[in-house]
């Protein structure tokens, strides 16, 4: 897994597993998404980009022109890139728990080189609301992890929620990096296989989802 940013790539160089990139400003993640797509493109392999946002908000992370431009600058095979990167949008809170929807993704998702799960922050629990969305969040992360495991490929989650990371996402991620700053990137590695983990003891199970 490479982005072309040396400092970041050394932390992303893990066998497989889920990498979570967090940033409060989604615009910070856009160039990273572009760089990953361009670099992960291999002949005969496909990349799946899952998008949780509303169709009408679809442009905030996907910058098609930017991707094509970056591919040209990298000297990558643009035609191959255009044909091997697949987008799936409108995967919203209402539909995320639908078994048949995930089945369709599993049917599609063989021979994948990389799976990106964008805008997962849409599934975070809204402050002051009931825990209904917690189910869809854990369900989505579980299914996503299964998809990556089935394909033995990297999974990248873009999370721009201002809230602390969802515990299930944190548990499943091999690497968690917080992206900060603009125009120069600053990265804060929160979780990595080489880093000792700070274990927080959970006092009560009542506030957690049933399979946590």
């Amino acid at each position: 897994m490479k982005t072309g940013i040396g400092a970041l790539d050394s932390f992303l160089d893990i066998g497989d597993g889920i990498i979570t990139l967090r940033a409060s400003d989604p615009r910070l993640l856009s160039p990273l998404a572009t760089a990953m797509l361009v670099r992960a493109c291999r002949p005969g392999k496909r990349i799946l980009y899952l998008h949780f946002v509303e169709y009408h908000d679809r442009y905030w992370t996907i910058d098609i022109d930017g991707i094509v431009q970056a591919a040209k600058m990298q000297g990558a095979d643009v035609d191959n890139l255009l044909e091997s990167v697949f987008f799936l949008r409108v995967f919203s809170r209402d539909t995320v728990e639908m078994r048949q929807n995930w089945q369709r993704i599993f049917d599609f998702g063989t021979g994948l080189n990389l799976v990106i799960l964008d805008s997962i922050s849409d599934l975070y629990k809204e402050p002051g609301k009931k825990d209904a969305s917690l189910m869809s969040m854990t369900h989505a992360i579980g299914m996503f992890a299964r998809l990556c495991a089935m394909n033995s490929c990297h999974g990248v989650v873009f999370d721009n929620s201002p809230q602390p990371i969802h515990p299930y996402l944190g548990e499943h991620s091999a690497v968690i990096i917080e992206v900060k700053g603009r125009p120069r990137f600053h990265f804060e590695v929160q979780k990595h296989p080489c880093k000792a983990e700070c274990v927080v003891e959970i006092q009560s199970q009542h506030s957690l989802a049933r399979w946590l």
Partner: protein
Amino acid sequence: MRFQGWLLDIREGQDSVSLGFKTRDGGNIVLSDRFRHSFYLVSGNPQEAEDYASKHPHVLDAEIEQKYVSLDAKGKTDAIKVVVDYARNYKRVVKDMKIIPGIKEIAETAIPQYFKYVMEKDAAFFSLYDVVAEQGKLISMEKTSSLELPPLSCGAIAPTSVNPKYLNLVLEGKPQMVIHPAKLAEALRETGTDMIFSYGGDSYLKRYGAASSLGNIFGVFFDSCAHIDLRKDIGYDIYNEHNLPIGQDSAKEILGIGKSRIARLIELSQMTGAKPDTICRITPGRLNTYLHIRAAKRNGYLVPDLRKEMERPKSLKLLMQLDKGGSIIYPTPGIYENVAKCDFASMYPNIIVKYNISPETITCTCCKEPMIVPEAGWKTCTERKGIIPQGIEEVLRRRLELKHLAKTSTDPAKRAEFDMRQRALKNILVTCFGYLGFSNFIFSNVECKECVMLYGRHILSMAKEIAEDAGFEALYGMVDSVFVSGGNEKQYLDYVRKVSAETGITLELDCIFSRLVFPAAKDASGVANHYYGLMQDGRMEARGIAVRHSDSCALAVQCQERMAKAILSAPDACAGIKEAKGLLADFKKRLKEGEFVLADFAITKAIGRDIGDYVSNAPHVVAFRQEPNAANVSVFVYSLFGPRPARQASRREIDIKKYAELLDASFEELVRGLRPAITHLKK
């Protein structure tokens, strides 16, 4: 008993519904009709599921029906209709059915029961019926008219200015009275009021404890009459003509506005089947849901409780090809003469109907000769009419009928009523396309939306080609309108007829501009939706310039309007520009001499976010910080001390230099990039 009456209300009971009728003499008759709550089960083993379901103690009947169980189902399959004994057991039965082995889906539990009754009986609120009843029970009802309106008794409420916990209640033909909110429901029942209007009643009635048992997250409802919250109704009406906000304590004003809007509620209620007090509380997009659920039911589809479909995965290549907006033909900046403005009538709804675009028809495998979607190559069914086109077609047909009635009616009041009714339907038509891509719409489908856009682009390019073949020049095109030059009225009429015939979508000649100006953008390029022109009847039409901007000061609007008219009406455009320059100098001179009043300098701008969220020091924000107001509108002037609220500023401290700059900018906006156009004109 036989009588003629308008159906005003349907109330759900335990094993029946109560139908409220209004008779011709203004009387109210309530009849009951047997109607049990029901829903559907989809199972891998229908026989076994039917057996299980029918053994439930609260299930009255469970029978297998043939239904399309999903939108992509190729044919009808078995679905089990479960009829529950009493409404109070409904939720329990639905919950219990989930544990039946092999159950794939439970459908139609989210549809209100009254709406199911409306669909089953093909009933419509506010329609006139010939009713036969016996001992308070409905025997039969037959629709006779949907155009004649019932004699409704209406009222309005507003909090009193002295004590907002009390309400002013105005009922037609009765003196205004003061009432406590807790007694409102009783008063409405006693007076036999059919419809009560309020402005923001949903929030203040709940606060002061009126009808607390009937209040829910959607609003406050009364059991004896429909409560219409005009704040919501006006807010959701795209074509609203009433100014907001209405004075809170003016119940009479609210009653007047409410009565003028009854026709809209009635029309939307008749078209969608939703109750009038629901209509006023739902977005125009949501009206589509009601409309299409009816069409789906008519076609034998099960309506799922949750949206299941998602967009199919698309490669970047396909996404670049398909994910486009409406087409724009950018104009070359310049001055043009004899330009025809032609508009496609309800372009996107007509495309949906003509090309049968619906989630279940765009991936057709059944037809021998399907329609091929341009660029995408998808196949659209030509044999089975889709549910979305069916719903939209009904609205289009009805709107045409109402437009015709509005034109031909001799009674001005009737004309206004029909016009309001057709404008109400336009709310559905303008949102039907965008709603196709809305994730919470039960039948949304991104591919359908892309299809419509592709057809729209294709049709606009056809219109351009036909214009060029006819020897015209297509100057400018914007999604559903095209501006052509080089002909006369007769030739333009021939042109619109030809385009209509070839595309299948009616193109109308909207107007002919004797002179039309397309000013350039700041980078000298042509820009969309930025023009001004003089129509043959002497009226001016402008888009995208200061005269149209809501945040322009009256001074700039006055000046620009006069300059634009000078450019448009002078015999020679060059002379017109010179005259406009003269007018600019004159306005600047008058500005220096202090001829204008303070109101001419005031600029109005809305504060869209919480004022604390603004990081910029934009003039309207600076002024708003000095004098915040509840309406979140900043009315300010440029003073010598910076932006100030208009109410605090005086005429003497106006920054003349800044306003002179604004006048210069308004002139520049009119003539930018017009030099090449002068040669154009000579041609």
